[in-house]
């Protein structure tokens, strides 16, 4: 946010959501995402591990990874998107990296993340 014009910073500030919990890389979250199909809309929950947070004000995103029927699924969400109904913080994890891409190469027990509670 430091090197952009103050006008843009002001514009972006007004778009930032403050109702989301402060989750970090390694945490397990459940993202309640509003999906619009035609004139119907429903809420879909995507639950998984946050493997990346791209912190860039309103333009920021975060990536959630889960393994569904033995297939790894990753989804990138725009952090401040109004389509995110809410983000539930399921558990906090202990990790040493900012980007958990190494999880893609691991499976089963090896792909677990230490829970902050057990520390």
């Amino acid at each position, binding site marked *: 946010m430091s090197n*952009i014009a103050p006008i843009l910073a*002001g*514009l972006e500030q007004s778009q930032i959501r403050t109702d989301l919990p402060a989750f970090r890389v390694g945490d397990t979250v459940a993202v309640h995402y509003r999906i619009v199909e035609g004139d119907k809309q429903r809420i879909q929950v995507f639950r998984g591990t946050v493997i990346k947070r791209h912190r860039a004000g309103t333009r920021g995103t975060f990536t959630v990874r889960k393994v569904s029927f033995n297939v790894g699924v990753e989804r990138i969400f725009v952090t*401040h998107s*109004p389509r995110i109904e809410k983000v539930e913080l399921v558990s906090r994890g202990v990790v040493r990296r900012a980007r958990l891409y190494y999880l893609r190469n691991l499976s089963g027990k090896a792909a677990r993340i230490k829970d902050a509670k057990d520390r």
Partner: protein
Amino acid sequence: MNQYPGVIGRKVGMTQIFNADGTVVPCTVVEARPVVVAKRTQAQDGYDAIVLGIGERKEKHTSKPLAGFFKKQNVSPRRSLRELRCPAEYAAKYEVGQEVRLDEVFSEGQFVDVQGVSIGRGFSGVMRRHNFKGQSQTHGTHEYERHGGAIGTNMTPGRTLPGMKMPGQHGNRTLSVLNQRVVKVIPDQNLLLIRGGIPGSRNSLVVVRGAIKRRGGMPKSA
């Protein structure tokens, strides 16, 4: 000629905003707070136009002829001036010295044309200027890696055809981008949000007018 209402402004930069339905709209922010500095009339000049000015110009940077002009118009010196041709009825709505408010000129959802001077890249080779591929970096290529290759044939026609893409000045040209949608008008801050990119670097001067190929680009209901 584009005679639709318009303003001159300063390109602030790009950002993105969320639509009501949550889609992300990339947009360019233009700050425009123009003042009518002078008018051209059919009787006196042979055409009708308003002269808009933006920015501030310090007294020491104002040449004496220009200072005289501003004094005559009773307007404080402005950094940039542009004439916008318009119908006489439109010019009659504005007084010299009056500020042009953005919400009078544009509405959300309208289409506009934006003119600006593209970012100058100087004398550039064909790879940057025309997106040529260049040559192989290996297989014995020697001092020919960023060249354009052949520019013509030998006997027939025996000359290089006109318009051949070659190195040269790239950018720093006046360009217009047509039919860009106005995403948002914020008159309190004199800001205009235009969907997509517009020519020019940050802080450069841009001219925003109603879209010429869409009858001024006003929404259908209006």
